C-alpha cells in the first residue's frame, strides 16, 4: 500500500493532536445543537490548515491530493465535528475563480474568519423541487452554489444568513443539513463560463475523494476496535476471535478495507489527469458502500455493546452513514461512471 511520506506523517500527527478529542466535542455539540463552538475552528485556521490545497501563489501550502487523503484518513477517527474536509476541498476552487470577489472570500476562508462550504445540486429526496443540499449547514458562513452549464455556468457565494428560511435538519452524527432553493440572481458572482464549470467539477471531485478518505479512516478505526474486541471477549470459555466464523468475517472486512484504501490512493494519483472524474466517482461509490457494509458487520460482531451509544463504535457508525450520503451516494456515483471517460 502507499505509505504516507515522513512529512505527511508529521502533518497528520500534528493535525490529529490539534483536533484532539473530537468524539467528546461531537457528543457535546449534540447536546448544544444547533449551537456550535467556534473556538476549535479558530485554532485550526490559525494553524493554517484550510490553506493546505491552496496554491502557494494564493497564499496556501500547495499540497497535493495525496497529502489530503493521507491527512483526512488519519484524522477521520478523531470524529472532530468541524467541517475541515469540506473546507479543504473547496479552498482551491476560490483560487481558481480568478476574481476579486473570490480572492476576498478565499482570504476570509484561509484566515478562519469565514467558513465557506459548497452546496450540491439536489433536492429533498422524494420531493421534486430542484435546489441545493448543504451538509455541515450550521457551520457555514458563506455557501457556494453552482447554476447552469457551459457558457451560462455561474458560481455564486450566498451568505448563510440568507438561507435561514430553509429548515436546518439534524443529521445522525450531530451535524446539520439544509435543502434550499436560490432565487434567480441571488448571491455574489464568483466566476462564470466553462473554465469556472471545470473548476467546480474539480472541487466536487475533491469533496468526493476527501469523503472517501475519511470513510476509509473510519473503517480502519472501526476494524481496530473490532479486532481488539474479538481478542478479549470470551464466550463458551474461549476468545470469540478464535471462532472460525468470526475469523473469516474479520478477514473479509480486512480485504474490503484493503481494496477501498487502495482505490483512495489510486484516485488521488489520478487528480489532474483525464480520469480524475471517473476515479473520484468510483472512489466515493466504493468507500460509501464499503464503509456501510463494514461498519454494520463491526456492530454485529460486537453484539449488544456494538449497539450501545456509549461505546466508541456508535459515533463512528453514524459519521460513516452521514458521509456515505453526502456528495453523491454509491448509486449516484455509480450512475455517473458510464457517462464519464472510461478507464483504460
Amino acid at each position, binding site marked *: 500500500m502507499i505509505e504516507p511520506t515522513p512529512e505527511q506523517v508529521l502533518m497528520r500527527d500534528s493535525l490529529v493532536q490539534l483536533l484532539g478529542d473530537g468524539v467528546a466535542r461531537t457528543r457535546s455539540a449534540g447536546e448544544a445543537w444547533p449551537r456550535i463552538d467556534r473556538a476549535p475552528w479558530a485554532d485550526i485556521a490559525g494553524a493554517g490548515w484550510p490553506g493546505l490545497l491552496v496554491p502557494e501563489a494564493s497564499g496556501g501550502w500547495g499540497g497535493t491530493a495525496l497529502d489530503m487523503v493521507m491527512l483526512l484518513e488519519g484524522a477521520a477517527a478523531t470524529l472532530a465535528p468541524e467541517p475541515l474536509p469540506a473546507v479543504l476541498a473547496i479552498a482551491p476552487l476560490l483560487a481558481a475563480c480568478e476574481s476579486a470577489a473570490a480572492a476576498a472570500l478565499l482570504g476570509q476562508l484561509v484566515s478562519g474568519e469565514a467558513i465557506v462550504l459548497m452546496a450540491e445540486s439536489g433536492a429533498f429526496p422524494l420531493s421534486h423541487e430542484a435546489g441545493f443540499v448543504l451538509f455541515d449547514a450550521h457551520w457555514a458562513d458563506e455557501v457556494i452554489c453552482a447554476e447552469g452549464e457551459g457558457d451560462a455556468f455561474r458560481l455564486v457565494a450566498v451568505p448563510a444568513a440568507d438561507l435561514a428560511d430553509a429548515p436546518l435538519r439534524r443529521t445522525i452524527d450531530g451535524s446539520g443539513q439544509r435543502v434550499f432553493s436560490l432565487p434567480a440572481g441571488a448571491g455574489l458572482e464568483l466566476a462564470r463560463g466553462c473554465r469556472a464549470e471545470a473548476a467546480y467539477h474539480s472541487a466536487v471531485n475533491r469533496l468526493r475523494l476527501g469523503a472517501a478518505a475519511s470513510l476509509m479512516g473510519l473503517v480502519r478505526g472501526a476494524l481496530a476496535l473490532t479486532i481488539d474486541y474479538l481478542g478479549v471477549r470470551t464466550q463458551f470459555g474461549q476468545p470469540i476471535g478464535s471462532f472460525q466464523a468470526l*475469523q473469516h468475517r474479520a478477514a473479509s472486512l480486512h480485504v474490503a478495507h484493503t481494496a477501498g484504501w487502495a482505490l483512495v490512493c489510486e484516485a488521488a494519483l489520478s487528480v489532474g489527469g483525464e480520469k480524475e472524474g471517473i476515479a473520484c466517482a468510483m472512489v466515493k461509490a466504493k468507500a460509501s458502500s464499503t464503509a456501510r457494509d463494514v461498519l454494520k458487520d463491526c456492530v454485529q460482531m460486537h453484539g449488544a455493546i456494538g449497539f450501545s451509544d456509549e461505546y466508541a463504535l456508535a459515533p463512528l457508525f453514524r459519521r460513516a452513514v452521514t458521509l456515505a450520503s453526502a456528495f453523491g451516494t454509491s448509486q449516484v456515483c455509480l450512475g455517473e461512471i458510464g457517462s464519464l471517460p472510461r*478507464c483504460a
Partner: protein
Amino acid sequence: MLRIESEAEQAFRREVRDWYAAELPEELRDLTFRPEPARALGWYRRLSQRGWIAPHWPKTFGGMGASPVEQVILMEEAARIGAPELPTQGLNQIGPILQRFGTPEQQARHLPAILNGDVIWCQGYSEPGAGSDLASLRTRGRVEDDEIVVTGHKIWTTWGHHADWIYALVRTNETLPRRQGITFLLIDLTSPGITRRPIRTLADENEFCEVFFDEVRVPRANVVGPLDGGWSIVTALLDEERIQLGAPSHALRALERVRRMARALGPALGEAGHLMVAEAEMEVAALTAAFLQILTGVASGKAGDPSGLKILSTETTQRVLDIAQELAGSAASLKLPEQVAGAVIDFSELFLQSRRLSIYGGTNEIQRGLIADRVLKLPKGKRP
C-alpha cells in the same frame, strides 16, 4: 489503471497496443478458453522474442524487470485486444523457484526453455487426500544411490497432460515430522513409469489431470534445495505465488466481456444494468490499485499481504462474472460464444472457468484463516 501515466508509460502503452494489434493472430483473439499448446505456443514465442513473456522476472534471468505500472499496462492491453491465456506454471511458479533455490545447472537448463516456450511445466503438489493440507502427501521417493525412485499419485494437475515436466513434492523420509521429510523434485514426464489421466472439469474441458508414478527413476541432480528440505522452498514461494495470483489479468478479461455485453445491449442495458457495469469497472479499478500498490511495496522490501490480494483478485473476477451472467439474461446458459454486434461474446465459459479461482493456490477459506492468524493476529482457534 486510474493514475496519471508518465510520458514514458503512455509511450509504452501505445507500443504494446500497436504491437499486439499487428502481431496477435486473429484466430487467437477472443478465445474464451485457454488454447492448447499447438495453437498457443507460436504466440508465446512471439511474445518471448519481443521480450514481454516474463515481465516480472529480473533481467538477469532473461525477464523484463518491468515496473508494476508496466506489468499492469501489459495486462490491460492484453485484455483489451482479447489475447489468449497462456501457460503460467513455468513463468509464475517453477521459474521463480529455480531463480531462488535452483543450482546454476538447473537454472541454465530450465529457465531459457521456459522463456522460449520449449518446455511446458505443471505442478505436482496436490494428491488425493492432500489438498489444502499439503504436508499430508503420500507420494514416496526412495533414495537409491544417485537416483530417487518415485511412486505415488498426484491430482488436480493443471495442464498435466500437455506438460513436458512436472515439479513435485515427494516424501523421502518417513521418520521425520511430516513437514521435514519432503523433497522438491523436477521430473521429466517422458520418464518410464508415468501415467496421465485427464479429468473433465465443471467447464467441460480437460484443464487438469491425474498423474500416476510407478517406480519412476529421477536423477539426484533434479532435487531442488536440500534432500528432505522441500517444504521450506514451497512455503518461501507461496507468498510470491499468491501475489501473481492476485494480478488483475483474469478480472480485466472478465471486465472486457462485461464491456462488450454493455455495448451490444446499448439502450437495452437499462438503469440497473448500467449500475452493474459501473460496479464491475469500479471493483476492477480497486483490485488493480491494490495490486499496483502491493507490488510496489514488495519491490521495496515490504511484506505484501498476499492472502488478502489473492482473495480480492479471485472474488473480484467472480463478482464481475456474476454481473456478466445477469447481463446475459436467458443467454447465460449458452455453451458456445456468439458473434453479437461485431463482438465475440462468451456467455458462460468464463463464469464456469472462474470457479477454480477461489479454490486453487490455497482455497480462499485457507487464505482467510491465514489473514486471521498472520495479519489480524486473532487468537488461535481450531483452524485446518
